[in-house]
C-alpha cells in the first residue's frame, strides 16, 4: 500500500483519502488551488461543485491574463505565426522563464512567410530577454523612458507612435517607429507574469493603433502553462474561468472575491486543498491544509499529504503547450506508480457523502 501522511504520521493512501473526504465534507469555506493537468483540473472542478468550494491558480499572472479576455478582449497571434511571419518582435515586460527557449528560437530563425527574411527585436524591459544581452550592443534595441515605470514607458511609447506629445522621450522610439513603418507583421510578446493590468491593456491599445493601417498582433505567453490549461477547462465546464466558486450552488466568477490567495491571507478559509507542485502558502489561523503534491515527506502544517505524480513525467497527461498555443497529450517520460491528481481526486469524490 502506497504511503500518504495524516499530519506527520504515515498512513495508507486509502485512509488518507477517506480522511480528506471527511475534512472536505465538513468544511464551511473550502478553497482549492489548482496547478495540474487538464484531467486533474476537470476532477478538481467536479470536487469544487460537490463541496461548494472556490478554486483558483496560485500565480497572480494567470488572473491578469484572464482579465485581458474577460474585461477587454484584444488581438492575439499564435506562436507558430510569430515564428514564421513576425519581422518585428517587441518584447514588453518580463516573460516567464520557460519562454526563453522560444525567444531563442525566434533569434535563430527568420520569418519565411513575410518580410525580407530578417527579424528585428525591440525590448520594453530592463532585463535580458532570451539569449540577448541587456544593452544596446546586442541585436535588441531597448526602449526606456526616464522617470517612469514599465507601464508608463508603454503608455509613452503608444503616445509617441500615435504622434502625440509626451513629457519625457522614449529612448530609441524613433528606431522602433522606423521599423514599424517597414514591418510586414509586428508581434508583441508579453505575459501576465511581467505586466500589470494597465500595461497589458496599453499593449493591446498599441496593437489596435497599428492595425488601423498595418498588421500587428500579440502573443500572450501564459504565466503558467498548467494555469492557462486550467482556465480553458474551467471555461468550458462552468462557462467561467478560474476564481470561480460554487459556494451558492451555481458557479460564480469574481476575480477579487474568489482570489484564493487573498481569501487565505484574510482568514476567510477553513480548509485549503492544494493540488500541484511547489509549496502551498502558509495557512492562516485554524484553517486546515490538504496537500496533493509530488513529495516523499509530509508537507509542513498539512493535515493530510497525499503524493501525486508529475503530469507528463510520472503519468500520461494532457497539458497546455505554450509553444503550440493549444492542448497536447504528453505520455509519461518516466512512468512511476505515483498516481495522477485526477485519480486521487476522483477517489476522494467517491468517498464523499452523496448528500454532500
Amino acid at each position, binding site marked *: 500500500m502506497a504511503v500518504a501522511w495524516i499530519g506527520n504520521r504515515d498512513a495508507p493512501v486509502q485512509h488518507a483519502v477517506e480522511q480528506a473526504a471527511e475534512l472536505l465534507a465538513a468544511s464551511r469555506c473550502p478553497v482549492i488551488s489548482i496547478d495540474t493537468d487538464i484531467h486533474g483540473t476537470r476532477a478538481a472542478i467536479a470536487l469544487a461543485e460537490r463541496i461548494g468550494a472556490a478554486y483558483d491558480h496560485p500565480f497572480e499572472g494567470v488572473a491578469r491574463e484572464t482579465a485581458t479576455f474577460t474585461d477587454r478582449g484584444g488581438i492575439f*497571434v499564435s506562436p507558430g505565426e510569430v515564428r514564421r511571419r513576425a519581422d518585428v518582435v517587441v518584447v514588453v515586460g518580463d516573460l516567464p522563464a520557460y519562454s526563453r527557449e522560444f525567444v531563442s528560437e525566434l533569434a535563430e530563425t527568420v520569418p519565411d512567410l513575410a518580410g525580407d527574411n530578417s527579424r528585428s527585436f525591440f525590448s520594453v524591459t530592463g532585463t535580458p530577454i532570451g539569449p540577448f544581452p541587456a544593452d544596446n550592443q546586442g541585436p535588441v534595441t531597448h526602449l526606456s523612458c526616464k522617470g517612469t515605470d514599465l507601464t508608463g514607458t508603454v503608455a509613452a511609447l503608444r503616445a509617441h507612435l500615435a504622434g502625440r506629445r509626451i513629457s519625457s522621450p522614449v529612448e530609441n522610439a524613433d528606431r522602433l517607429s522606423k521599423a514599424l513603418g517597414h514591418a*510586414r507583421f509586428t508581434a508583441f510578446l508579453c505575459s501576465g507574469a511581467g505586466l500589470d493590468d494597465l500595461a497589458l491593456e496599453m499593449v493591446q491599445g498599441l496593437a489596435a493603433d497599428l492595425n488601423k493601417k498595418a498588421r500587428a498582433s500579440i502573443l500572450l505567453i501564459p504565466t503558467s502553462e498548467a494555469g492557462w490549461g486550467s482556465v480553458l477547462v474551467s471555461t468550458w*465546464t462552468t462557462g*467561467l474561468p478560474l476564481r470561480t466558486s460554487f459556494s451558492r450552488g451555481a458557479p460564480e466568477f469574481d476575480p477579487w472575491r474568489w482570489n484564493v490567495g487573498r481569501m487565505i491571507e484574510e482568514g476567510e478559509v477553513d480548509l485549503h486543498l492544494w493540488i500541484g507542485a511547489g509549496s502551498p502558502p502558509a495557512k492562516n489561523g485554524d484553517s486546515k491544509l490538504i496537500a496533493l503534491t509530488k513529495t516523499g515527506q509530509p508537507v509542513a502544517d498539512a493535515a493530510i499529504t497525499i503524493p501525486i505524480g508529475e503530469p507528463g513525467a510520472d503519468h500520461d497527461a494532457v497539458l497546455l503547450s505554450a509553444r*503550440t498555443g*493549444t492542448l497536447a497529450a504528453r505520455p509519461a517520460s518516466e512512468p512511476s506508480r505515483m498516481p495522477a491528481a485526477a485519480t486521487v481526486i476522483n477517489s476522494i469524490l467517491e468517498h464523499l457523502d452523496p448528500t454532500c
Partner: protein
Amino acid sequence: MLTKIAGGEIIDPVGGRHGVGDLWIEDGVIVDPPAGRNAETTVDASGCIVMAGAIDIHSHIGGGNVNTARLLLPEHHSAHLPRPSETPLSNLGWTAFQTGRLYAQMGFTTVVEPAMAPGNALHTHLELADIPIIDKATLAVLGNDDFLLSLIRDNASSSMIEDYVAWTVASSRALGAKVINAGGSAAFKENVRRFSLDDIVPSYGVSSRKIVKTLQMAVQNLGIPHPLHVHCNNLGMPGSVDTAAATIAAAEGVPLHLAHLQFYGYGTEGKRRFSSAASQLAEQVNATPEITIDVGQVMFGQTVTISSDVLRQFSARGNAHPKKSVIFDGDGNGGGIVPYRYRKDFYGSLQWAIGLELFLLITDPWRVFFTTDHPNGAPFTAYPALFELLMSKEARREMAEGLSASALALTTLLAIDREYTLEEIAVMTRAAPARLLGLKDRGNLAAGAIADVAVYRKGKDIAKMFGSAAFVFKDGELVVKDGEVVAHRWGRALRLAPQPDKTMVRRLEAYHQERYGLSLDWFDFPDWAIAREQPFSEVACAA
C-alpha cells in the same frame, strides 16, 4: 431490453412510414416487430409524433473559438444564472454540459461542430467529450494553411493534395472538411482588408476560387461522404449575393455545401444599399442540384458571433455589443469573436426575413438544412420558435408586425404561403442531414438504425412541441421524458479514418520540423487523452 413506443404517428421519410403505429427498440437499435414477444417496457406515444433523432449539421458547440467566446463574456453567464429567462444569452447552452442537455430536450441526438482547426483538434475533442447525451462530429478547416496553399502554388498533383486532406481529416478525427473564406485569413495576415472569390492570396499567387475547387475535388475523390463545406468570401457584406452566386456556379456539377447562406442573401438596392437577394439565390440553388445549403437563420436578441473568418470578424469588431472582441491570427485560419445584438431595426428585420425566404423558396427539403449557425444567427435554443415560423404563415405574419416595414417591403416573405409539413421537417432535420454526412445508421426509423428517437406531443403550439420533447431515446436509452433530462450518458464523436499516405506523413513531419520547429504530435493524439471509453466512432468513406 425490448421496448415498444406504442401508438404514435410515425414519420420516417426514408422508410416511407407516415401513420399511426408502433416502433420497437432492442439493444440500442430499431428492430422489426418481434413475433411472439412482449415488450419489457412500453412507452405510450398516443397523441404524439415519432421521428428519428434530429441532426444539426452546423453548430459551433466546442473548440478554441467557442471557448474564447465564453471567456470573453463571463458577465452574460453570470447574469443568466439567477434570472435565466430574462437576461441576454439566457437560453444559450453555454457550458459543454448544458449544450448536450438542451439539444437532447429538443430531440436532437447528433450535432456537428463545423470549424475545428486541425492543430486544435485535441482541445476540440476534449470539449466535445464533455457534452453529454448527444453524438458529435467535427469538420476540419483547411484552405488558409501554408502547406496547402504552397502545394497549390507549386502545382502539386491532385493525389498529393488528397493525401494531405486525408491526413488532416484522419489525424484531427474529423467527419469532413471545410473551407472558410478560402485564402482570406492568409491574405489578412498580409494586410489585405477585402477578399473575394477571384482575388489572389499574396505570396502564393493562388486565387480563392482555386483553393475552393482544389479542396472540392480532393473531398470528392477521397470519397468523403460530406461534400466540401464552404463558408464563402464576403460574409455579411451588402452585395454578398454575387459572391455566393459565383461560388454556386463554380460547383460545376460536383457536390458543394454552402454554409449559412442567409449571410450571403444581401443585395445593394434601396436607399440604404442593403436589400434582400434571397429570391435570386433560392432560384439559383433550386436550379443547381449539386448544391446543398444551410440557412443560418437570424433571430432577435443578444448573441455572440464566432467565426474562423478572421478577416470578416476584424471588420465587424466595431459593431461589437458589448464593446469588446477577440481577433486571433492563428495558424491557418485563426478566428474572431464579436458579441452582437440583433435588433428589430431595418437591418435585423431584413436579415430575419432573408433567412426565412431562403427556407421557404428553396423547394427541396433534402437540400436546405435547418441551422442558425449557432450562435452566429441565434443560439440553437431558438430552434423551436424557428420551427413555428416555418410551419405557420400566421406566426410569420404576427412576428412581422413588430418589425421594420421598410425592410420587409424589400422582401417577398409576406407573400409566401408555404408552410412546412411535418414530413418536410423530418426530411430537413433527420433524413437529409444523415444522407449529407454519410451517416447511414441514423436519420431514419428502419430496422437496424440506431435507436435515436424523438417523440413530440402534438399540439397547436409548435414551438412548445419541438422545444420540449415528450420522450427522447439515445442509442435506445430513455434520456428525456416530458422535456426533462432523465439520464446522462457520454456520446461519441463520429469520425472518418482515411489511411494517411506514409510518404505524405514523412513530408509533413519534415515540413513541421523545419518551418515550425515542432513534430506532428502537435496534430495527432492518442485516444487515452480524451479519458472516456470509446470516445470515437468510425464512419466509412465511400468506396
